[in-house]
Each structure stands twice: as C-alpha cells, then as structure tokens.
C-alpha cells in the first residue's frame, strides 16, 4: 500500500533517463523497465527526497492535479521505482 503521508524517494537501484515524453526508469534489482509519461511526474519523483512526505511534494501541484499524480506515485511504488525512506 502506498502511504502518501510517509517520506519516499527514488529507489536507490533505479536509474532515470529523461526522454521527450517524460523519462524511462530501469530497476537494476528486478530488471524492470518503467515508462514515466509526463515531465511533471518525473520532477515530482525527483523532488520526493526533499519532502517529509509524498503529500508535501504533491502540495507543490495545483489541487485538481494532485489526485492523478498521487495514483501515479502509488503505481510507481508498487513497481518499486519508489522506496519508503
């Protein structure tokens, strides 16, 4: 379960590579390739380590957009692209 009230970060075994559509993420542990399909999502993921909770990072976005990005973060956590700090 993704708990947005907790602090998160990019998983240390994940490499992110910027692409025109967003970014590609590769997990060196489970060898999975994940597509991040928006620049905003990529910036959000990179910003997580600077906030005390994922919710604080989401607060940088306009309110109507937060729910969508919260679900996107939950999916990335399920794929182990994100790691609970």
């Amino acid at each position, binding site marked *: 379960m993704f708990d947005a009230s907790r602090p998160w970060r990019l998983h240390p075994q994940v*490499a992110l*590579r*910027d*692409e*025109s*559509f967003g970014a*590609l993420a*590769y997990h*060196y542990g489970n*060898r999975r*390739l994940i*597509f991040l*399909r928006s620049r905003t999502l990529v910036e959000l993921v990179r910003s997580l380590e600077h906030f005390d909770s994922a919710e604080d990072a989401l607060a940088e976005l306009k309110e109507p957009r937060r729910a969508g990005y919260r679900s996107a973060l939950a999916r990335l956590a399920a794929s182990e692209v994100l790691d609970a700090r």
Partner: protein
Amino acid sequence: MPASAASGLRDRLSHGLAAPICLTWELTYACNLACIHCLSSSGRRDPRELSTDEVKRVVDELSTMGVFYVNIGGGEPMTRPDFFEILAYAVGQRVGVKFSTNGTRLDQASAERLAGMDYVDVQISLDGATAEVNDAVRGAGSYRAARRAMDNLAAAGFGPFKISVVVTRHNVGQLDALAAMAERYGAQLRVTRLRPSGRGADSWAELHPTASQQHYLYEWLRDRPQVLTGDSFFHLSALGEPLEGLNLCGAGRVVCLIDPVGDVYACPFVLHDEFRAGNVRDGGGFAAVWRTSELFESLREPTSAGACASCGSYDACRGGCMAAKFFTGLPLDGPDPECVFGHGHADLAGAGSPPRPSADHSARVPVRLVARG
C-alpha cells in the same frame, strides 16, 4: 495499461529515444560453433575488432548516455581473453550486462565468477530440448556443452539465468519440455524468432515455423506471459490480443547493434550495408551515430503501411519485421514473410534473389566441438 495509452506510447517510441533502450553489442566474430542460423555469420575473429581500450571508451559513452544495459553477444563473447575485464568495467560504470553464450567456455570457475557479479545476466543458447534437435542446428556436442554450463551456473548459485531458444519448425513441439527444463533449473525461458539473417538466410526456408505452428506458438505464449520473448513475435499479435511487449519494430528507434568492428546497425538482424548507420570509431562516437545518422533519422520518420494498409490487423503487427522482409527479398512496406494471414506468401513466390548479408565470418572449415573436462 489501456490499449490507447499503449499505442500512444508506441507512437512516441517510434520517433526515437535519447538513447537506445536495448543495445546489442557483439564483441567478436570468433566462435567455436557454427550454428546454421547464426545472425552474424560468425566463426573467424575479424582483425579490426575493437581493442579492450576502445571497448571501454564505448562503455563510457553508453554510461554517459544513460544506457541501462547492453546485450552482449557475438560470435562467442567468452572467447575474448578480456571478456571478464569488459564485464567488470561495464558494471562498474553502471551499464548492466546481459550476455548470450553457447556455454562451451562456461566452466565451474567462470560460473562462480559470474555468480559474484551484480547486474550481470546470462543467457545460454539452446535450440532444442534434446541433443538430436539442438545439435542439428548448433552442431555436434553443443547440447551437452550448454547443459554443462547450466549445471555449472546452478552449482555456483548464480540464480535465475536464462535459457534462450530460437523457435524453429523442429523445436516448437518441445516448448513444454524446454519450459520444464527451465523450471528445474530455476531459470527463465526466453524464446525468440528465427530471422533469415546471416547464415539464417540459407537455413530459414527449412527452419522457420509453419503457419499452423505459428498459431500454436501464439496461443502458447499468450498462456505464458512469464516467458520472455525480446518482443520478437509481434507479427503474431495480428492473431488477436497483443503479446506482452511494445509490439513495434524498434530498429534505430529503441534498439540498435554495435558489431565487433564498431559498425552500428539498426538492429541485430540487419547486418547489411544498407542498414549500417556509422561506426563508433567515427569522430562523434556512438552518440553521434545514434542521434544524427541519416539512416536512423529516416527510420524515425512515420512509416507507410504500403501494401498492408487495407489489412485490418496492421495496427497490431505493423507489417512485421523489417529484417525478415529485407533478407527474403520482400518490399519493406509490405507484409512480413511470416504474415499470419499468408499475405507475404504470394510476394515471396515472386521475390527475386534476396540481398545477401554483407559480411561473412564463417569458419572456412567446419568446426568440431571438442568436449572439455
């Protein structure tokens, strides 16, 4: 992901990426086997092959470009005396390595060495569940050598290595047995498509699966999403629900090949001058070839459906594999020679003499595999 999102992503990918997702790197043309379907017609080392230092400079570039991993092959990459040095260097630069080997050099000591390395995956090539079927393609003694390599990896506690099978008319009936073998080893099964490339140009007609075998293969893969395919059977997706993977020809868009002398080709299956984009020894290195070669830029342009435009399944298979068409003499904007609806058949019958692979490094005399300890 929903189908519309998947096809949107596919459109973006077909315009190319900042760096390849998947880069195949053949380290040498030297090989101690002489498989009759070898994509690179390997056998003899080429005197112009990249030196250890040149290989390391390319690894540096790949690392800077953010290439996550390379698929190393050949030839038989383990015949290079600097093989482990290259592996260690790549991993140290955070470029993961997946390498394909025939297993003949994978003794107990190398298995233990590999087991101690992070970010290294091993694929043992095996083209049949029995020596009879495998050795008919890969040569006498090759089945035994591959099984011994698997035993060595298992004994060394390497973990889940891959058993990599090129599907042919003669082994398609052994897929269940191959899956069972993989399970016994705790390995992953990987099956890929036979291409009429390299020496495969001469063996494809008698080795490629029949139409009914293709239907069987599609169902078999649909039922087993855990079986890896390297995205190579997307032409079968015209039969119904798409198979796992991106389902697109990634040549020059998301994949490419570096050959042992540093030539960069659009994909591992088109070692032909027409698909040579440049060389890593050129001024701008690999990055310039990937980003600015005329060939790759043209491959990233929107493609025409050509003769496939009237087919309702074009969106599923995208006309199939460019290399398969090229080396069977078919037009690139028409159906795949193995089009599941048989649309390629008529064209095949009328095709002139297909282009020959540009280089041939086959051994001049048949090689004999001598069993080692």
